[in-house]
């Protein structure tokens, strides 16, 4: 399957997730495939074992809710359990975990710092397409930050492997100590580890906010 086909396939899946999520939500009385320590609430729900509900084995993980630091550990714990159900190499598992961490921390960093749960609502989905995986994130971002993010991703997508490495070193060398919450190498880190372009889309949802989505492919 070509990369183009893969993405088309997964875009289709992405549209379908809302339906899958709903199906899973109403079927939540079905026992989980694996014991979990998630606290469930209307705002925060991890929908687990979707293949058991929908027969769609391509959805490895689907989450909708606020992205908090604690959630990141829970998601990692969950996906490491899911990996035992697929023939996945340690190499690919490590890449998925690191992409998830960076992508979720990117949401954490750029998402609106407002108490309103509705605005903090984000999505993290992991698909499995043959031996490849696709990590898809979506969250609301303030307009100015959304355009900055798009410009940054465009620049990173245009870089060769050597340019990515040089940029990574340059940022670490010069920007360390200037920002309290990371030096901005997160997206470069994703690009270096996957060797793929990061698909990015943004859609205006209200006056000052865009819903930004990143799709990151991890090849076998």
């Amino acid at each position, binding site marked *: 399957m070509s990369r183009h086909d893969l993405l088309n396939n997964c875009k289709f899946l992405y549209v379908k997730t809302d339906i899958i999520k709903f199906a899973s939500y109403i079927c939540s009385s079905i026992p989980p495939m694996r014991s979990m320590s998630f606290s469930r609430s209307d705002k925060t729900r991890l929908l687990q074992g979707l293949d058991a509900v929908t027969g769609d084995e391509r959805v490895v993980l689907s989450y909708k809710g606020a992205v908090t*630091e604690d959630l*990141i*550990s829970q998601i*990692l*714990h969950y996906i*490491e*359990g899911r*990996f*035992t159900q697929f023939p996945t*190499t*340690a*190499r690919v598992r*490590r*890449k998925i*975990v*690191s992409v998830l*961490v*960076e992508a979720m*921390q990117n949401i*954490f*960093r750029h998402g609106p710092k407002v108490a309103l749960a509705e605005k903090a609502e984000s999505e993290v989905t992991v698909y499995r397409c043959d031996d490849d995986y696709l990590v898809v994130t979506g969250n609301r971002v303030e307009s100015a930050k959304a355009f900055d993010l798009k410009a940054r991703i465009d620049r990173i997508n245009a870089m060769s492997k050597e340019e990515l*490495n040089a940029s*990574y*070193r340059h940022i*670490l*060398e010069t*920007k*360390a*100590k200037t920002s*309290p*919450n*990371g*030096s901005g*190498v*997160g997206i*470069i*880190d994703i690009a*270096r*580890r996957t060797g793929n372009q990061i698909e990015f889309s943004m859609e205006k949802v209200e006056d000052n906010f865009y819903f930004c989505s990143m799709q990151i492919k991890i090849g076998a």
Partner: protein
Amino acid sequence: MALKALLLEAGNRSPGVVFEPSSGAFVLEGRSIPENALELYAPVLNWTREYVRNPAEHTHLEFKLSYFNSSSTEHLLELFNLLKTVEASGKKFSCRWYREADDEDMEQIAQDFMALVGMKFEMFVVQPTASEGDEDDDL
């Protein structure tokens, strides 16, 4: 006054730290994925700043982190840069950097660190853990 050893237990998102000032034997292990890396590393870096004023003859770091996020990276780099300063007073600093055999990303990061710090590490390749898929592997 002698500096006390720095001992931090590994957590879900934070590494285990064993820094022995008298012997110069330092170990970092586990994984480091805090969102607020500054909060985690500030005490470690402050301790190290104190240590390098009067370091052991030979400071050796066993770097066994299986994974660290990008916001940890700059602080870890600063740790290396601080430890490297012991050389100014004629002391020695060395590092053995562990990575799994098929972890080319960790190899790349080690290369970046060597270039940025200006020193060679001893790369130590370990075979991936046999308990494949066990979520407690790296805890």
